[in-house]
Every structure is written in C-alpha cells, then in structure tokens.
C-alpha cells in the first residue's frame, strides 16, 4: 500500500550513480539508463521507512530524500 507520508526522491543533479541505494533496497531503487539512481516506488509502504533512512544517510552524495 502506498504511503503519502513517504515520498522518495533522488536529486539527479547530486546523484553520482554509486548504486549504494540499489544494494540496500532494490525494490525501491534502480540504476537507470543514464547510469544514475531512479526511484521505482516513490510513495512506498511505511515498512520501508527504516531502509529509506539508511539509504539517505549511506548515499555518498546524499542525493536521496524521502
């Protein structure tokens, strides 16, 4: 079920395509054709809140917000 409280975004201007987010949660993130991160589910279930927090902090360029 989607959650209006979680709204995942990747700032493409900041993202450097390290793929750390994909390693952490491939159900939410993917590397796109432009070699940068993309969001597969932009309003995911709240069960993803913890992993989104980890992805946001772990991203070397801190391109992820949610």
């Amino acid at each position, binding site marked *: 079920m989607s959650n209006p409280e979680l*709204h995942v*975004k990747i700032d493409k*201007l*900041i993202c*450097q*395509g*390290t*793929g*750390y987010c994909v*390693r952490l949660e491939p159900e939410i993130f993917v590397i796109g054709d432009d*070699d940068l991160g993309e969001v597969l589910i932009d309003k995911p279930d709240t069960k993803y809140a913890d992993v989104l*927090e*980890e992805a946001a*902090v*772990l991203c*070397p*360029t*801190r391109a992820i*917000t*949610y």
Partner: protein
Amino acid sequence: MEPPPHIVGIQHFVDYKSVDEILKSKDFRQGSHQESQPFFGGSLLTIDHGEHFDRRRLEAPLFRKEALEYYEREELLPLIAKSLEECERNRGEDGIVRADLCLLVRNMLARISAVTTGIDGVDTPERTDAFRTYVEQLGTGATVEWSTEDHGEVIDRILEIRAGFVEEFYGPSVERRRELISAFQAGDISENDLPRDLLTLMYLHWNDDWDDELPLREATLYTVASSQTTTHAVPHMMMHLHEWFEAHPEDFEKRFDREFLKRAGHEAIRLHLPSPALLRIALKDVVLSDGTEIAEGERVACLFTPANRDTSVFGEDAKSFDPYREADGVKPWGFAFGGGEHTCIGRTLVTGLSARTDGDEGTDGTLVNIALALFEAGIELDPAEMPAFTELSYHDAYGTFPVILRNL
C-alpha cells in the same frame, strides 16, 4: 612549481567534466595513498566497491541527522565557545584580545575530531595542543607521497611519533570503550550509555577480517581528515569576507546571516580545497566521453583546483569569490569533498545537513557556526601584522592569520 614526483608523467585531468566522469566511474579504484599504507591502509579512504560499501554502512550512523544535530548542539557549539573563552587569556595590556586564527581554528577542530573519533582527554589547552600536534604529525605521514623529504625516513619518524599518540591518547580511549562495550553486552548499561563515536562503533561491531591495528588507521583517517577542510577554509573564508565587505559595505550586516555565511563557506571551499588532487587507477581500458583513452592499470590524476575554477561550470568569474554565485547542476563546493563513492563521509559535518523534505531545519555545520561565532566575537584583521601563507605546503594555506577579537 614542479609537481611532486609521484604524479609526474601521468595523465592529468583539469576540467570539471572529465574529473566528474572519472570519479563517478566504477571502472577506477583509489590510486592515492600508495606509500602511506602504514597510516591509512585498509581505512575507508583506501578501500573500494563492496568493501567500501560495507565499511560506509557500518559508519553511516555517525552521520545520521540525529547524530549530526547532537554533535552540533552538544559538542560543536560548546567547544567553539570554550575555545573563544580561552582566547581571553591573551588579552593585551591595551585590553584587546588577539589571536592567531589558524591556531584557534586548528584547536577547535582538534577537539571536534577527537569527539567524533572517540579520543578522550582532549579538554584542556595543554592536552589540546598535544593532541593537535600528534594529529598534524600523523597527517604528515598520511600524505608522505607529497613530502619533499626522504619518504622512508618520514614513515619511520611518524611511526615512532604514532607510538606516543597510542600511549598517551588512543590506547586509554580504546580501553575505556572496550570496557563500556563489555558492560553493555553484559546488560549492565544501555546502548544509549555508549559514546557516539567511530571507535565505539568499530569495537561494538568488530569484524574478524580486520587486523588489530585497523581501528587505529581508521581513527587516523578521521582525526586527520575531519579537521582538514575546515581548518584550511576558515582563514580563507574570513579573508574573502573581509574583502567582500570592503567592496560591498551594504552586505556587512549579513555577517550574522547563516544563509549568507553558508554560501560564503561554499565559495571558500570551492576555491581553496584541502586536497588539491586525487589519483585513480583504471580497472580496465577506459575511453572517456571526450575520446580520451586510459589503459587498464594506468594511474590518472584529477586536479581539483582547476576543475573547481572551470569557467564553463562556475561562470567567467570562476576564480573570484562570490557568495551569490549560482552554478546550475553542480554542488556549490565542486570537488572539495571528492566525488563518487569516495565522496567524503564527513561532508555534512562541514557544510551542515540541508533542510530535508520532512520540514526539519537540519544543521549548519562547522564552517557557518565557527564563522558566526567569530563575527559575534568581533573578529577583525590585526593591522599590526597581516596574514601570511605557510612556506611548508604546496597548497595556498595560511600559516599565520593574526586577528583581533574586539567583543571579547
């Protein structure tokens, strides 16, 4: 000036686009710190890909929003206030407090880096001096590749100095953390009672693949790197702002404006990078988008200073300081924190955490908070002695920066 021998003859990249492409690419690995392995070997700085991801994941909790807010509120602000208070001991017979900004900021950052790393007892001015001296010596060992002295002699000398650091600071700090972790694991204390620092995290989540000295080398990286950017940038930031306010007196009141100071800090670190170059080694034959070929195993140098002054990215006046600069599509500090997976893990300690979508204000970081405290202390250049660059570095680093703190 001749480049250091270890980068002579290798391909150099000086434009923003090429440097960005190399740093982003997974076809390269870290190529710096080949000789400084005794100090940085196996640390986050020197490992790549899967190993880098795992280590970064372990250390990421130190840079969570809550942790950054804790450091800023509970550690950074009191440490800045204490360091300025200690300056009052230098009040002259004329009643004016004078200080060397370089030394003042180095002492502030030594204390902050001790807290984030997990080194105890960096509290009095004397102990801070001792710790800072150790860190600066370790920094010499960690950048031995750039040394003009005999590299073997430098390594031997600094290893001897490191033994003193271990005995005086590192060893007792580790011992205390291991005791606390034992107490936590026995159920005698809660996790909240454990210190929030690197060494606690490493011993709490010990990996049997690590050698016993890895936490020492990781701690060396943290203590050296965490103070470098801010100590290098603050004197430049103050000089640029001094000149900016002379040319734009209408902006003088903005010396207390955090957003203005944040922009000024970004410009200072864009123009004056703590690490002027970074080396990468190609893992396979690579052709960059402009057609440049790099062979498998080839080391290349990314030169950050010219890349951060690339007029095609930062505008025709890219070499100038402009706190109102708008550079579309790039970070305002350029490569000051590197790029790709090796982007500095501590960047948010320096720049602060930008406001997030959850509506929090985030943190302002060391640059803004130190600059603001200095302006509140009434910082002025000391007309009796002008700032001077150090002769001990290839970088544009200030060696002395005499100031008056008019409001103390």
